[in-house]
């Protein structure tokens, strides 16, 4: 179908000033992504998939400015023993980064995916993104594949002794950054990847994750406390037999965040957990859009999303479980809940189940509510001041999502971030 004129011209206006970078041997994949993008067009607010989140500022040629934010707090994961890979305004910074050698993992920069010598990631770059365009189009992800200026490829071959931390900082107030990472977890291998930092005034991040049979990947992301940043993340994961993929995302502040997550369970007995906690006060719009496809038997998927919203903040959840014919004994679970701390905040939800197998157990639920007054009174009657009692109930509300993080220390780190956010909000 031909694009309508508005979409076509918006797309061409955006692309006019952009140059497809010459980074490693990804040229072919980039051109393919570009033609995918041209046939889809960039998202428009009339698109069904963008009904709840206006894509205008993500699509317009220049990003809106975003002031730098520094609250003096130590960055998240700072106390962890990890391998740091730092990008400043979208460019890898070798001085701030650690040496990229670590036993059990091979890390390269995207530019090292070179034609002259064979690189494993050559066959992956853009592949999962392309596959993830059906049945729902994700033009911003194709845009990323075409234009990403930097990124890393991570091949997990064993069990690295520490997590790999992708850190995104920004120094320019009008930076527009595209990063693209390719992750491959080999059979039976296991790793943890951490991501944090605002990256840019406008950030478009894409991560393609391929987990081979019996492999495990934990991904914990903290989208920082910057107020004015905008971010869209595109996560594509393909899971082999008996593999495990667990992802948790904390979003605190940010005027606009859209986290798209596309997971396909292709091997029997695979497990995918996708969870998130969002804390928004005031000018905050946060969108979790998740699509999980069960295409094998006895797989398990969980989606657990909690949002705490106040002073006009908006939370969005679009979550789908698609169970293909033959994906028998699927166990699918989806819950999305919001705590609205006042009458001005909004939670917009579209949970979906589409099931073509007859022997499955899938459930989904969504709720939106104020703080439990009975619980608040009970805590206060025992002497807890109202603000402490409210914080305790807020943390309790998001706990179900945070508990999806398997590692105790990482879970505590995220709880610490939540507590800091609550303190910050009180001023």
């Amino acid at each position, binding site marked *: 179908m031909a694009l309508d004129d508005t979409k076509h011209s918006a797309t061409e206006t955006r692309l006019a000033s952009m140059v497809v970078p010459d980074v490693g041997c990804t040229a072919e994949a980039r051109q393919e992504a570009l033609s995918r993008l041209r046939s889809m067009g960039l998202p428009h607010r009339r698109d069904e998939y963008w009904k709840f989140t206006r894509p205008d500022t993500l699509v317009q040629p220049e990003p809106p400015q975003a002031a730098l934010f520094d609250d003096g707090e130590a960055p998240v994961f700072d106390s962890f023993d990890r391998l740091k890979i730092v990008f400043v305004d979208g460019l890898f910074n070798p001085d701030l980064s650690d040496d990229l050698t670590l036993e059990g993992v091979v890390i390269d920069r995207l530019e090292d995916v070179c034609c002259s010598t064979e690189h494993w990631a050559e066959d992956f770059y853009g592949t999962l993104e392309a596959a993830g365009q059906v049945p729902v189009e994700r033009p911003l992800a194709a845009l990323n594949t075409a234009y990403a200026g930097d990124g890393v490829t991570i091949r997990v071959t064993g069990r690295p002794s520490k997590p790999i931390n992708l850190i995104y900082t920004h120094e320019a107030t009008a930076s527009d950054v595209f990063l693209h990472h390719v992750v491959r977890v080999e059979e039976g291998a296991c790793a943890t990847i951490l991501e944090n930092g605002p990256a840019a005034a406008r950030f478009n991040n894409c991560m393609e994750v391929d987990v081979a049979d019996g492999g495990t990947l934990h991904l914990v992301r903290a989208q920082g406390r910057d107020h004015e940043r905008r971010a869209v993340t595109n996560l594509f994961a393909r899971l082999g037999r008996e593999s495990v993929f667990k992802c948790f995302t904390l979003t605190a502040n940010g005027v606009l965040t859209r986290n798209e997550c596309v997971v396909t369970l292709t091997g029997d007995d695979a497990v995918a957990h996708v969870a998130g906690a969002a804390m928004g006060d005031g000018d905050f719009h946060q969108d979790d859009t998740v699509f999980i496809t069960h295409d094998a038997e006895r797989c398990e998927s969980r989606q657990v999303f909690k949002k705490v919203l106040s002073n006009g903040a908006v939370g969005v959840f679009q979550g789908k479980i698609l169970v293909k014919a033959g994906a028998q004994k699927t166990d699918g679970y989806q819950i999305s809940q919001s705590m609205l701390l006042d009458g001005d905040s909004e939670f917009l939800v579209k949970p979906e189940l589409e099931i073509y197998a007859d022997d499955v157990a899938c459930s989904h639920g969504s709720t939106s509510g104020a703080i*439990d*007054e*009975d*619980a608040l*009174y*009970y*805590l*206060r*009657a*025992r*002497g*807890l*001041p*109202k603000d*402490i*009692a409210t914080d*305790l*109930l807020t*943390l*309790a*509300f998001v*706990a*179900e999502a945070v508990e999806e993080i398997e590692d105790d220390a990482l879970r505590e780190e995220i709880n610490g971030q939540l507590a800091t956010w609550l303190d910050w909000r009180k001023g």
Partner: protein
Amino acid sequence: MLEIKNLHVDLEDEDKSILKGVDLTVEAGKVHAIMGPNGSGKSTLSYVLSGRAGYEVTQGLATLDGVDLLALEPEERAAEGLFLAFQYPVEIPGVGNMTFLRTAVNAQRKARGQEEMSAADFLKEVREKAETLKIDADMLKRPVNVGFSGGEKQRNEILPMAMLAPKMCILDETDSGLDVDAMKLVAEGVNALRDEGRGFLVITHYQRLLDHIKPDVVHIMSEGRIIKSGGPELALEVEKNGYENLKAEVA
């Protein structure tokens, strides 16, 4: 210690009076019991004293050692030494029982200008007190009241009372839903806290709780007023003849 004078209370959202002039004084070291039929206003009295929203005091006053309770927030009343054991303890998923207790103890200490209790001291004390109430480590770890049986919930109401050492304890139908053994255990917990510096107000439908927690004074409440006060024998009289008889007699 606790003084209630001519207390009139309406429901905030409806044009309905619940308490119509309650007068009551509980002295330090004494146990007072309030008995009365359903709807007489017993639980409302406990809610109004502890500061639950939804009630409007139209007349009268309530003081604890001279401090005007009705002017304070619920947490300030607690810091003044008022404690309510709830008839229906609230389940709070996600908040650990121990976290809640420790936060409560330290919040009250802070409000009184005392230092926070160290984690080690707190743990030692809570374990001792939990043991006497037969509250095991698992119950302490679980979320507040979630999945607790009726008996467990009521024992779990007495534990904070023991930890917070309030001046004035109100027990709102603590016996509801308890079997005899559970009731004995709860009563033992309460009796262990009886002290000449501490007052108790025990609200109950039935005389049986008063077999275990022996009151000094028994009040009968009906239609928002205390219609008769007396010694422990009054509870027995109610048990034998019912409230209707008594109401007729007073009228």
